[in-house]
């Protein structure tokens, strides 16, 4: 039982991980990230990469929506901007993939600032509609600016290449995607120890009060849009190297809703929320496949009969979490932590 965490230095007060169990769990997590690709088969390696890409995109959206309070349904469009930038650079300039991915994030951030401008006037649902409109404009550009985007058939991306080795397998790509995802999540955690991050939270809690406190709304709201779009751009860039073809249909509007659902289910405004949410939203439909698989010996054509049920179960699970755990899965983790911390006493 941990009675309290007495912090004796400023360093300890600012630390990301304050307790011993937290540190131990983090070491276990990092170790399993390193071991995972050796244990997993291609299917799980694929899912691990996909989850990590979604973690980056969801974390970005969490900064904007969960921490700054600006509802956005344009995250998928920013992912597309990143993916197209990478694909275009790969085709036209042939620059190294890390440069491409970074520029993908940069271009997405620049466009994110433009799309964020309405946030200075409108909030909530109105802002959500404005971001939807922006994503439709971007989609139109992807489909019709044929000389750059390849029109409706899109752009093929050559494999990422490092020291002459082409990253072709999921195992290889994992070593690109995993470190980037870890760095991005770590950067987010750090962001909220700085003035910028604190300003975002102040804006979320009450924008007028934040302005009174001396936080320029213009700068910080646009900065939040830029950071969120940067994350989306990076995620999109990795997506481009992962799937190797980018078309206007690669990032449908539904992806934005998927990401918003991920942070709501995971827990808005917590670092772990976006991570857990992205994992939950990506893996649950896949795990439900196994249920279908088990039934198949007893039920011929189980996949045909049960696949619609799978979709319904997935929807019901999301609703279940919203009803029983409105703070998201992150809150469950907090409760489990509390339980062990004060054990044998009741929380």
């Amino acid at each position, binding site marked *: 039982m941990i009675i309290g965490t007495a912090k004796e230095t400023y360093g300890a007060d600012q630390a990301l991980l304050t307790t011993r169990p937290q540190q131990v769990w983090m070491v276990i997590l990092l170790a399993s990230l390193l071991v995972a690709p050796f244990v997993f088969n291609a299917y799980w390696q*694929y899912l691990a990469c996909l989850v990590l890409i979604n973690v980056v995109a969801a974390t970005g959206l969490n900064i904007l929506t969960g921490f700054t309070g600006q509802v956005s349904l344009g995250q998928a469009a920013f992912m597309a901007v990143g993916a197209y930038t990478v694909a275009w650079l790969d085709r036209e300039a042939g620059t190294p993939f890390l440069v491409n991915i970074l520029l993908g994030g940069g271009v997405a951030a620049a466009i994110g600032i433009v799309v964020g401008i309405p946030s200075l006037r409108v909030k909530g649902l109105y802002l959500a509609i404005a971001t939807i409109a922006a994503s439709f404009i971007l989609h139109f550009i992807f489909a019709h600016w044929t000389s750059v985007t390849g029109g409706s058939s*899109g752009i093929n991306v050559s494999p990422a290449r490092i020291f002459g080795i082409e990253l072709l397998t999921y195992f290889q790509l994992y070593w690109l995607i995993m470190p980037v995802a870890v760095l991005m999540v770590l950067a987010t955690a750090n962001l909220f120890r700085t003035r910028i991050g604190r300003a975002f939270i102040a804006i979320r809690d009450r924008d007028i009060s934040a302005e009174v406190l001396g936080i320029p709304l213009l700068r910080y709201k646009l900065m939040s849009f830029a950071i969120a779009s940067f994350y989306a751009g990076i995620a999109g860039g990795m997506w481009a190297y992962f*799937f190797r073809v980018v*078309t206007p249909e690669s990032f449908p509007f539904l992806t934005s809703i998927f990401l918003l659902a991920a942070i709501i289910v995971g827990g808005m405004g917590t670092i772990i929320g976006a991570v857990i949410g992205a994992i939950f939203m990506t893996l649950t439909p896949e*795990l439900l496949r196994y249920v*279908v698989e088990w039934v198949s010996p007893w039920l011929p054509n189980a996949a045909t009969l049960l696949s619609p049920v799978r979709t319904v179960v997935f929807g019901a699970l999301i609703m279940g979490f919203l009803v*029983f*755990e409105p703070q998201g899965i992150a809150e469950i983790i907090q409760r489990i932590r509390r339980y062990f911390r004060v054990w044998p006493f009741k929380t």
Partner: protein
Amino acid sequence: MFNVTKRSFIGLMAGVSMTLLTSGAMADDGDIVIGGSLPLTGVFAFAGVAIEAGMQDYISIVNEAGGIDGRKVRLAYEDTGYKVDQSVAVFNKLTSQEDIHLYYGDSTGFAKTIAPELARKQSMIMGGASFASELNDPEAFPYTFMAGPDYSEMFSILLEYIAKEKPGAKIVLVNSDSEFGRDPIEPARAKAAELGLNIVEEIITPPGSVDVSTEVLKLRRAQPDYTLFHGYILAPLPEFMTQAKELGLTTKFMGTFWSMDSSIWAGSGDVADGFMGVMPYRYYYDDAADAPMLDRIRAMRPEYQATGYMQGFVTAMLMVEASKRVIDAGDELNGATLKTALNTIKDFDTGGVIGVPISIPGNSIPVGRVYQYDSSAQKMLPVSDWISLQE
């Protein structure tokens, strides 16, 4: 009370996920496995379910006859919801669990995404629901094939029919603003010019659009003899045709494979009457004398089977035939041997599902026939002979 519910809900979730994670893979049993990323839910589910039935039926016909060289054929498939990332997930799941040399993919997006992986693995060939012209390139897609003409070839078949019926006819192309919709526009222009046909207007409709009144006005200005749709399943075709009829237009409407199922038109009533289009396979109810396989299908399934069924059936047939040829030659099943064997298929009899003997010199089978919908019989009836682009 509430806490208990919450806790048991979480407990249930944890239990389910634990048990899920501990499941094992299927053992290799010497079967020839056809893998499939099939859209059993989502917008394309109607086709996915039919495709699965068609493939299963052909596979059971083969297995009843003793399989391929004594080895049974089996379809291992899962639902994709018609989403590319899920299709790829299913592909990876199935290929990690089974030894797969034949695969069915559900979309153009998936086919393009998985092509580099097929080239890397070199272990299988892939057919699928996409007839995208881009895939009909053996250089770029060496392990891909389609069980019919690609979308450009479908348009070419229609244009050849038109050129025969009404030389110099005026044509309007109506395509949805998607990769699927825009696919055959360029080649159609070239083919029309070659045949002396006159494309007077090209209309692109936004995906999912319902209101087509402005497009119909364009149609009235153009006064075409034929209007060719592509990139749709059903909507907004009936609306288009209703409004055109109200304006007194005499243009004939035509479509391509995925909008040619007679059951989808049955709900549209009289307006569907006279709708024409290209179809590479015979319909379920076709009682032609030279189609014993259709009798067999009707014996297996007494109720109507959609066009997707025939597509799945023929795809499975070609996969089995290619495997047979590879095994007969004593070769190992892999991408190269299967594709080579597939390309040796010449004047092959599909049991009448396709009305003429077929050959697959490249990635497609450029054969089809023009059908017309008869709303009183609720059937598609042939109006042309089989048109092959190979001659």
